[in-house]
């Protein structure tokens, strides 16, 4: 290890904070500061009323200069709030900010052992001894700079992809849309109206397509597929196959907006595509006003919320309501009955839509998962819980509300991007709660039904969301990433057996084998968790700022060597 390090004399300065009486009222900080001066490599100590105050910070800077300190330890509140401040302080004093170590003697010591001042004193002393021992081993680290190519690739030219691309191009970034079909628009091209505003889908999507065509900085590549992706955040090289022609794009961020697919309805409730069809097959009939039926029955959750597809597709209830209302508009005398399990119309306008459908005379009959509707040639038998008996409903058109399903080729794209899918084959975001449009891998984002079935409104906001997330990266010529990352140091290269355990264990795909078949850590992607170093079969990898050497020195300082 030491071959890299300058053999300079280590001089640790320890600053013990009274934090008023928060620490000073429980233990004798002055005595503590004097006592810790005897610890190895400690060159200077002092106690401050408030080390974080202007006076305290000035004292640190002065001591660094006067006593030629090259490591600084502050024993005070907690690093979670004050580490950045002290790092900045020693940085101003001319030291690398990573040569600072924080010792928590307030939140985890004097505050929790108020009635045991002597033991608290001993604990604080041990903690400082450990902290100083680690400080001795600290090494200067630099923040890592990554260049960013201010261009984006949006995979998928549906409404999610177009929304994302439009926003990015308006923000001034060169943006490409890669669409596998020969035209933009995605699912909306085949729909009739859009709930809950009853706007023509083609008219609506037509406007967006027009905006895309007129946008600056925005290039649409249709009839094409992504066939290879190399690189990392800010620096992706993407290969596109457009009808056999290979094209290379260089982008800084990638947005996945590939949408979803329709379920193959064969075998569901006697589906035949003529008398028993899906909502998606009903739409063109409604558009062409080509509906001959008098008795329409719709079945919700057809093929979803079961063991095979346990999820709710979330758009089907509203789709059924929309089509039921359209039918009533065409001819109020047509009977429409919707067989449902739980009607999914959350929020304000959707619930209103549901009420409207009731007012227009659409009949709702609840069925239970355990007693599925029994579809016969001209009638449906369904057990109705309200009346506690079987109802027989005649139909001349049966419409199945089938779920959106994940695209079968999601797997290929997921592999190219090194991002995960969830159990139903949809893309899996970084965190379902707080990072809904990110992947764990930086630089790759997601929006729309590729992630989970969503309606147009949510699709559009997610498209914008993905654009925003990408913009946080693309807005910078370079970005700085944490310096406390994992590395395979030159002097450890011979230890690496190439077993690839680290590649597997890394949650961020930050480790790969390079062209020389050597392990390489993409610094821009590493978050410094240290899993790889703790797992590396031959201890070749080093997690900086939390090295084995540093942690063991803390253990020795406490346990006694």
């Amino acid at each position, binding site marked *: 290890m030491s071959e890299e390090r300058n053999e300079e004399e280590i001089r640790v300065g320890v600053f013990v904070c009274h934090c008023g009486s928060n620490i000073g009222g429980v233990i004798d900080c002055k005595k503590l500061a004097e006592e810790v001066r005897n610890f190895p490599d400690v060159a200077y100590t002092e106690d401050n009323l408030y080390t974080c105050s202007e006076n305290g910070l000035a004292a640190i800077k002065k001591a660094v200069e006067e006593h030629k300190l090259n490591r600084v330890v502050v024993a005070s509140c*907690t*690093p*979670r709030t004050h580490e950045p401040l002290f790092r900045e302080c020693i940085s101003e004093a001319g030291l690398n900010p990573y040569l600072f170590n924080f010792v928590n003697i307030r939140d985890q010591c004097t505050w929790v052992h108020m009635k045991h001042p002597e033991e608290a004193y001993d604990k604080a002393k041990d903690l400082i001894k450990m902290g100083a021992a680690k400080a001795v081993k600290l090494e200067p680290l630099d923040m890592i700079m990554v260049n960013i190519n201010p261009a984006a690739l949006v995979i998928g030219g549906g409404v999610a992809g177009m929304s994302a691309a439009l926003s990015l191009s308006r923000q001034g970034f060169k943006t490409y849309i890669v669409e596998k079909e020969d035209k933009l628009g995605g699912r909306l091209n085949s729909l009739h109206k859009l709930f809950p505003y009853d706007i023509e889908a083609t008219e609506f999507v037509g406007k967006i397509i027009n905006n895309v065509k007129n946008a600056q900085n925005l290039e649409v590549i249709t009839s094409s597929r992504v066939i290879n992706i190399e690189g990392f955040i800010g620096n992706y090289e993407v290969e596109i196959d457009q009808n056999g022609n290979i094209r290379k794009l260089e982008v800084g961020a990638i947005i996945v907006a590939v949408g979803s697919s329709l379920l193959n309805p064969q075998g569901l409730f006697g589906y035949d595509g003529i008398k028993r069809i899906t909502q998606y097959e009903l739409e063109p009939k409604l558009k062409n006003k080509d509906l001959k039926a008098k008795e329409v029955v719709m079945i919700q959750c057809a093929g979803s919320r079961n063991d095979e597809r346990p999820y709710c597709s979330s758009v089907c209830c509203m789709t059924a309501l929309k089509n039921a209302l359209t039918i009533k508009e065409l001819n109020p005398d047509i009977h429409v009955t919707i067989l449902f399990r739980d009607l999914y119309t959350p929020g304000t306008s959707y619930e209103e839509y549901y009420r409207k459908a009731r007012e227009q005379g659409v009949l709702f009959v609840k069925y239970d998962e355990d007693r599925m509707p029994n579809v016969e040639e001209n009638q449906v038998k369904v057990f109705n819980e309200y009346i506690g008996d079987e109802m027989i409903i005649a139909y001349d058109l049966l419409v199945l509300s089938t779920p959106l399903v994940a695209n079968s080729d999601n797997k290929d794209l997921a592999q190219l991007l090194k991002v995960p899918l969830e159990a139903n084959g949809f893309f899996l975001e970084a965190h379902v709660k707080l990072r809904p449009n990110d992947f764990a891998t930086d630089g790759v984002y997601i929006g729309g039904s590729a992630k989970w079935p969503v309606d147009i409104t949510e699709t559009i906001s997610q498209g914008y969301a993905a654009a925003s997330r990408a913009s946080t990266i693309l807005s910078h010529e370079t970005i700085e990433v944490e310096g406390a990352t994992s590395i395979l140091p030159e002097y450890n290269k011979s230890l690496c057996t190439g077993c690839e355990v680290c590649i597997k264990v890394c949650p961020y795909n930050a480790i790969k084998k390079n062209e020389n078949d050597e392990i390489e850590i993409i610094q821009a992607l590493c978050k410094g*968790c240290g*899993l790889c170093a703790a*797992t590396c079969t031959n201890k070749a990898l080093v997690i900086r700022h939390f090295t*084995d050497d540093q942690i063991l020195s803390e253990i020795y300082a*406490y346990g006694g060597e």
Partner: protein
Amino acid sequence: MRMEENRVSFEPKLLGFLCNWCSYAGADLAGVSRIQYPPNMRVIRVMCSGRVDPEFVIQALELGIDGVYVMGCHIGDCHYLDGNYEAIRKFDMTKKFLSFVGLDNRIRLDWVSASEGVRFGEVVSKFVEDIKALGPSPLSGDTPDQELLEKVKAIREAVSSNRMRALVGRQRKITEEENVYGEKVPEEEFDVLMDQAIKEEYDRHRILLALEKDSKSVKDLGIELNLDPSIVLEHTLTLKSRSQVDFQKIIGNTPIFMRI
């Protein structure tokens, strides 16, 4: 008068590894809420509980620390997605090794969230209490149990061995993914493999340590380590194939082994 009592009653010396995002924050919240708990534990902050190398835990025990606590985010809460699963794997192996020498109940793994300030105090208090009940570690004080110390050293070397680290590191791949032949090893089968490896590597590293002091025959090793000579022979040959031991000489028909 409290001091007087303290001298007689045993105050355990404990070490805690706390992950930065949940447990360390929980410990801070205990402070902000002024939760009072016994002052026996010193904390080392790590970014993730999965960072805690088994070697750290063993090293602490070897130095006479009475108990080691590893704390991370609750399952599903890990800041690094699934680092705490890695912590479980490493911890389970460590515990199994320590069960050979009766120190397994001196280490503990637990999850404490950033909102569980009270609970942090509770689990630390419980740990202090439990370790008090166990009494001082046989490795603590001025005269640690030398024989036990040798064994723990062997464990430290064993957990750091390539084989054990590879097994732990690959566990997920082996049990969750199919190999090129479409085979997947079930969790239970893997456990059997793991247990066997733990036993073998423990014995092998004891042999290595025994040979470090001076060269010995299989028979002498068997007596010294209280192991069946046939097992010793098997291990010694494995170690030889790994280039960790070699024949030093042959006395009569008896080969004498040495550590390389």
